[in-house]
């Protein structure tokens, strides 16, 4: 007999299931819109030129492979903080922050979640927007926190339910933790406008909530890194000492290299040092110290003026292609003769789009047209190309007319 006889089979990952089914499909017109990774206009993975250049530079330096410090590569963590906070940020310049390298977005979120579980004694409750990235809930739960929700997405309008959000957030018990998507909300693509962010900040301040920002798409959403970090920077300027998780998976295309960072804005540099020491104590029994490759590439790019410039152009290029696909999808739907309002497709931002399609319509798209997406009607716009946007519009129109 086995120790593991009672171990249940884990449920299949819903998103992976989409890709599995897509792979099995023999239809030449098939489209994979479940993919959470950027694709170029030929539907291929895109390795940024600045990344290739950075890699060549790194290779020529012939560096050793000695362990990084527990908190990661200093040049990387400093540059990550500066990227998020802005070089003129008082919090950054005064050094009243600590940034540790994390295993991309997930790892950074998890370090933060564990840190809050251990040191934020006021509450166990983490409030997520409804809906949020599927992995947020298990990350916080495994870290020992409890999950609550606030209204966010309005399925009737396919946009932000701002009054619902404000209503819920104004009732969140003081000193709870609220998680906000900095930009390009996943999975809806619905972001608050700047005016709405201002109101959110005021309410959150009034309720004395601990703000946890998840920023996985800086630069990738609007094409402008400063614009995409606006909410994060505004909150800090309002005196809200946030915690922040960053990912370089999408905006630098470093997916499998796992480059990310977790930041805590503190009262002063001394507090930051103490927080840092505790973060290291959390990281050591998880994986000792982080992987160097992705951090080195990101650091080289952020800290080398020419490469940084090139990166900003490339990230804008990716964002622009996504925006252009959104525009083309809407115009193609109109051309198909669809009478529905598809404005949300261009109003939404980032990699994902909540189409508003119902499960039975999604099912038809998969079965009849080999267009693969998750049941909630979410599509990855990154999977759309100028070559297949017409087919996609046609398919969507057929199942919605």
């Amino acid at each position: 007999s086995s120790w593991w006889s009672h171990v249940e089979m884990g449920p299949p990952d819903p998103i992976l299931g989409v890709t599995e089914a897509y792979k099995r499909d023999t239809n030449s017109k098939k489209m994979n819109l479940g993919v959470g990774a950027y694709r170029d206009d030929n539907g291929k993975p895109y390795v940024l030129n600045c990344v290739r250049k950075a890699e060549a530079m790194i290779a020529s330096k012939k560096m050793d492979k000695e362990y990084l410090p527990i908190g990661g590569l200093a040049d990387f963590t400093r540059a990550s903080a500066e990227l998020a906070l802005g070089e003129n940020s008082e919090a950054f310049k005064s050094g009243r922050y600590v940034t540790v390298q994390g295993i991309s977005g997930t790892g950074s979120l998890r370090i933060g979640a564990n840190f809050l579980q251990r040191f934020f004694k006021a509450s166990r409750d983490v409030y997520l927007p409804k809906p949020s990235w599927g992995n947020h809930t298990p990350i916080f739960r495994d870290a020992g926190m409890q999950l609550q929700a606030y209204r966010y997405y309005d399925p009737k309008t396919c946009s932000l339910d701002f009054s619902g959000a404000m209503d819920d957030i104004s009732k969140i018990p003081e000193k709870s933790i609220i998680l906000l998507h900095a930009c390009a909300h996943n999975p809806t693509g619905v972001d608050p406008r700047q005016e709405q962010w201002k109101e959110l900040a005021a309410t959150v301040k009034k309720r004395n909530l601990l703000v946890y920002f998840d920023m996985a798409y800086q630069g990738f959403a609007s094409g402008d890194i400063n614009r995409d970090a606006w909410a994060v920077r505004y909150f800090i300027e309002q005196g809200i000492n946030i915690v922040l998780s960053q990912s370089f998976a999408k905006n630098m295309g470093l997916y499998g290299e796992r480059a990310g960072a977790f930041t805590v804005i503190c009262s002063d540099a001394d507090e930051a040092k103490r927080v840092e020491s505790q973060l290291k104590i959390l990281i050591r029994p998880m994986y000792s110290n982080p992987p160097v490759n992705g951090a080195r590439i990101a650091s080289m790019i952020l800290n080398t003026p020419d490469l940084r410039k090139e990166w900003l152009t490339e990230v804008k290029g990716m964002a622009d292609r996504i925006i252009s696909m959104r525009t083309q999808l809407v115009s193609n739907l109109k051309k198909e003769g669809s009478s529905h309002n598809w404005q949300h497709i261009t109003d939404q931002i980032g990699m994902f789009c909540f189409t508003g399609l119902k499960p039975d319509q999604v099912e038809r798209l998969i079965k009849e047209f080999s267009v693969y997406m998750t049941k909630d009607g979410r599509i990855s716009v990154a999977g759309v190309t100028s070559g297949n946007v017409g087919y996609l519009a046609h398919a969507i129109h057929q199942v919605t007319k």
Partner: protein
Amino acid sequence: AYRTDEGQPWVLPVVKKVEQMIANDNSLNHEYLPILGLPEFRANASRIALGDDSPAIKEKRVGSVQSLGGTGALRIGAEFLRRWYNGNNNTATPVYVSAPSWENHNSVFMDAGFKDIRTYHYWDAAKRGLDLKGLLSDMENAPEFSIFILHACAHNPTGTDPTPEQWKQIAAVMKLRNLFPFFDSAYQGFASGSLDKDAWAVRYFVSEGFELFCAQSFSKNFGLYNERVGNLTVVGKDADNVQRVLSQMEKIVRTTWSNPPSQGARIVATTLSSPQLFDEWYGNVKTMADRVLLMRSELRSRLEALGTPGTWNHITEQIGMFSFTGLNPKQVEYMVKEKHIYLMASGRINMCGLTTKNLDYVAKSIHEAVTKIQ
């Protein structure tokens, strides 16, 4: 970390070669790996641990989880055990760690939720060797189903390993008491220069029918420290059990790091799957192991030639990167303060810090410390 005879870090020549191959391969990109890691890495890593002819592999009852170094593999294994080992809540299940052990073992299991972490006798300071009697007694008296962390080879920090005969006795007691073997294998190849020899204990346990975990690190034997290359090998009764275990480990990985870093795994997979590169790697590993073995014998012979009080055969009988010299804290303080030789208060030295240039100085310093300070 390993150091050359010039006291420098060493990037293995085969690693440099393979990195160049990877850099020149334009078909490669930076896409996400699967949650459990690069398939070619996982299979090869477990094959290295269990052996090419492993019946367990042939019977398809081996699973692998690519992890962030040996630490990451330990953590995933620990998190899984806490959830699924003996019932669904193992927070009270005793976990036994050797006395002494790598300090992080305690933290890994504590942070994974285990509340009852105990030590088992291991190092006998008086005879400067393994306290087998104490070890076996602890196992005989451990609550049934307790988890035991075993060092596969090159025990950290003592450098003292059980002999094959002693391992057989350990396995017998563990079988009798239904104790779970969780191997930590951070030095395979690096210890003796032979992959098979350094994996003997793990393979013996597998042949005895145990279900076990083995956390592997490729930090030392591939010199890939900062790339965080590790693997959790799972050996189960049959394929079905292993499949279900992996599906649950996948869920644990997803909330810890989502999917592992690709660079280091690619290097290891490429190396292990090419007979030529594998041979080159083996040569590099032997270079490292041989240098450490040489430093051990050179240090011992100098101490014996100096007539340093005490016996020094433990220096060559111990194995791996570390050696418990037997120096007491006062003598260590002397070494640090007066001779500027840095070692742990436990008397542990890193043999990699020895070079042909500093052997005489170190030997003389130890001699002074032992004769001047009691």
